């Protein structure tokens, strides 16, 4: 008798429109009571495949079997009934509802009146599964890890036996990831079958029993985790051999290029986003900024670029105060910013304009005469395409038609073209596959060797540890310390990110974030202090 799988997907194919083949004849098995990693680069079709189990998409062809029986999943309701629960990457929670209501709203046969005892019932149920939550707390007041816990409780409450988690670790700190993995192992022991989507190899090795690999919508293979290694998995995932080491060239550093003192910034809601922050960047170094999403990185970048007013503090570039300067003047001083937001196209490039036009956007004001200088723009575009190996049909292709990696190369390329001395870059490899990511690291390292100071706001701690010279950790807008990348560990960074560890007073003789050979004059400091007091 053949093995009875918890889930068997046979020949699943899914198209979007006529062009995009997201899943091509995929076969996937999930054993009873195992943790299966679904590994693949961005755009390899992992989420699409899982959404067909959770009822968000319907497959164009193929068959799904649950516990050996063929099923048809046409809606999330069907999936719920079959005991399949999915924790989506972007949480499916109602922000203004309490934790209990978020669970309660999906309850079947709940009658007409809203039960006042629902809070107690949800809390008791969560306890039974080993979770501690406040059922009355509203989702909008929750931390990311709390929201994720709530999502897991939610699928358990609906009686899911098969649990799918879509990149659950992307938003968590190291400590939170360990906690999550402990939860997953416990659920496995209780007989749940789990699929976890990820593209982080170390997590695959750590948590899963087996690994299934997808590449560009194709099914590659499924292997036992114990029988493989990271190098082999990478080759399956990317399709060729790749060097996983990130270079960190040692370059002679200059005096501080950009110095930040006592900087305080408010966010759009008026709350303090950056709180009395000190740091500096030298030429020839990459300063990493680590922190949980939304702890002031965006506001910091915007303030440096002159896009956001500051409350108080100093921003000194080569001895000149740049506070209050318009963005254009800051740009002319050689400070460039490239911010890759979550949707990747929002800031910096105009998606429906061509590469040429996006080049012109930055320097149209320098052109003489009344008309746009397309010739120079096209030449600039051509040079970037050649130098950075951008894959595009032509210089006139709208940017949004390019793949993510190429868009980000265009953005960085344009910023570098102006010959900046300080580059502020936030999430430059966000959502990129391994190949493109390494191309971006190379670009940054090249700039560093040319003596540029780089502020690198990142997400992946492994990358930051390998690429950056120093790492500044933010927690709720406060600096928790600036550490040397080759002397610290992921665990230490994780503790600092949650605020559990504060290394700002590590060196008694040198306050964190203040350079000994500072360019800041006493007058500038005094003026800033007086302003702060007023």
């Amino acid at each position, binding site marked *: 008798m053949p093995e009875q799988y918890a889930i068997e997907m046979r020949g699943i194919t899914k198209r979007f429109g006529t062009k995009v083949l997201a899943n091509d004849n995929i076969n996937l098995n999930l054993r009873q009571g195992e943790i299966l990693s679904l590994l693949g680069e961005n755009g390899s079709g992992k989420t699409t495949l899982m959404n067909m189990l*959770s009822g*968000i998409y319907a497959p164009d062809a193929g068959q799904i079997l649950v516990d050996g029986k063929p099923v048809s999943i046409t809606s*999330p309701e069907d999936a*719920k009934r079959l005991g399949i629960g999915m924790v989506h990457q972007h949480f*499916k*929670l109602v922000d203004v509802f309490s934790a209990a209501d978020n669970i309660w709203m*999906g309850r079947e046969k709940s009658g007409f009146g809203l039960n006042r005892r629902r809070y107690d019932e949800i809390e008791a149920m969560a306890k039974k599964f080993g979770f501690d939550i406040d059922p009355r707390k509203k989702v909008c007041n929750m931390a990311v890890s709390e929201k994720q816990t709530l999502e897991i409780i939610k699928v358990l409450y609906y009686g899911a036996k098969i649990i799918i988690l879509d990149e659950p670790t992307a938003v968590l700190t190291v400590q939170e990831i360990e906690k999550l993995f402990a939860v997953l192992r416990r659920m496995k022991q209780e007989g749940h079958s789990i699929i976890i989507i990820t593209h982080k190899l170390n997590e695959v090795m750590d948590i899963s029993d087996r690994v299934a690999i997808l590449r560009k919508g194709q099914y590659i293979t499924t292997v036992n985790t114990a029988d493989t290694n990271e190098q082999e998995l990478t080759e399956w995932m990317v399709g060729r051999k790749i060097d996983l080491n990130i270079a960190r060239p040692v370059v002679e550093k200059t005096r501080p290029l950009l110095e930040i003192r006592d900087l305080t910034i408010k966010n759009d809601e008026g709350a303090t986003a950056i709180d009395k922050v000190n740091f500096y960047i030298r030429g020839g170094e990459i300063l990493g900024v680590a922190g949980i999403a939304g702890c002031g990185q965006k506001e910091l970048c915007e303030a440096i670029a002159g896009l956001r007013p500051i409350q108080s503090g100093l921003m000194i570039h080569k001895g000149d105060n740049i506070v209050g300067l318009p963005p254009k003047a800051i740009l002319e001083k050689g400070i460039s910013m490239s911010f890759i937001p979550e949707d990747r196209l929002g800031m910096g490039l105009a998606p429906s304009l061509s590469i040429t036009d996006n080049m012109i956007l930055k320097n149209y004001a320098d052109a003489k005469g009344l008309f746009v200088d397309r010739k120079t723009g096209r030449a600039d575009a051509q040079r970037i395409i050649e130098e950075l190996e951008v894959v595009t049909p032509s210089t006139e292709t709208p940017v949004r038609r390019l793949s993510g990696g190429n868009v980000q190369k265009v953005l960085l390329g344009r910023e570098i073209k102006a010959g900046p001395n300080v580059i502020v870059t936030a999430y430059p490899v966000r959502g990129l596959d391994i190949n493109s990511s390494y191309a971006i690291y190379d670009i940054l390292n090249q700039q560093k060797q040319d003596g540029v100071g780089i502020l690198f706001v990142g997400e992946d701690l492994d990358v930051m540890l390998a690429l950056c010279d120093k790492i500044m950790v933010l927690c709720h807008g406060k600096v928790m310390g600036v550490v040397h990348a080759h002397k610290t560990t992921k665990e230490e960074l994780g503790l600092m990110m949650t605020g559990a560890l504060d290394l700002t007073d590590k060196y008694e003789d040198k306050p964190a974030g203040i350079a000994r050979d500072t360019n800041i004059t006493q007058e500038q400091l005094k003026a800033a202090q007086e302003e702060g007091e007023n």
Partner: protein
Amino acid sequence: MEMDKLGVVTTFIHNIVVYNIPLLYGTVGEIVVEKSGSLNLGVEGIMAVGAIFGYIVGCYTNSMLVGILTAFAMGALMGLLFAALTVSLQANQNITGLTLTTFGLGVYFFVGNAIKAVAWPAMSDYSSIKNGFADIAIPGLSQIPVIGKGLFSHNILVYLGVVIALCMWYYLNRTNPGLRLRAVGENPGSADSVGINVKRVKYLHICLGCGIMGIGGYYMGLNMSGSFNSACWINGYGWIAVALVIFANWNPTMAILGTFVFGFFNTLRVSGSSLAVAFPEALGWLAKVPTQLYQALPFIITAIVLVVTSVRKREGSGLPAALGLNYFREER
């Protein structure tokens, strides 16, 4: 002499309620629709359709209940059209709503003029309609001096409007279907992911809300004693209702208060002069205020409310987060 003055106040309060209760119907109906995440700007047209059909069918059958039910059904039918266009066919909600207003007013005049060409039913000829719309004094409460007669002696549709508003508040906040409705309006994606049938919830509540608006339209027809002429009975009340939803912060009980506040200024415009005559020392200045200011006041207040609500923090706001956005499950 003293009694006479108080009588003016009583009439003033009475008029606030009588002339403005359609706002409550429109507002509560629109709240129900918007809580499902649909922004329906067709209130004016929907009320007009409810009004004309409710009035004519009600008169022909000589039954106010049939009139109410017809008005509700015709409003709901307009809602069904809106839902089919925006929920199933994913049409833009703003444009669909505006189209419904134009369409509804067109239907109103088309049907009205067609009937008028044959024989217009005069309300006074239909005893059960006329008597059904007569004031009913609530025993006890209506005996309270000055405000008793003003607030607690009204026709049945006034009471029905308040009851509907209170019921809708309870429905939204204290029932499971209400919880699911709010979930759909806040985040249809998450509602869908837990197995709530988003389309069904939207269809049901768009129709329910539009039906309530239809009754409001019927009220306006009856309040005008059914005299059909070149001006539409609804007379812009549908638009004020859309603004009142924001004033009420998507809370049906607050809609009652909102109706009073707007009604107060509306009534000031119409009978402010009688107050000025009754109280020359205290309120004589009312007569000197240009009527244009009164006419503008509801809209000025709306503008102020809009500013205040946009400043208010997200948490206290009843604005459904997904309002105006069409939901398509497979959207990437």
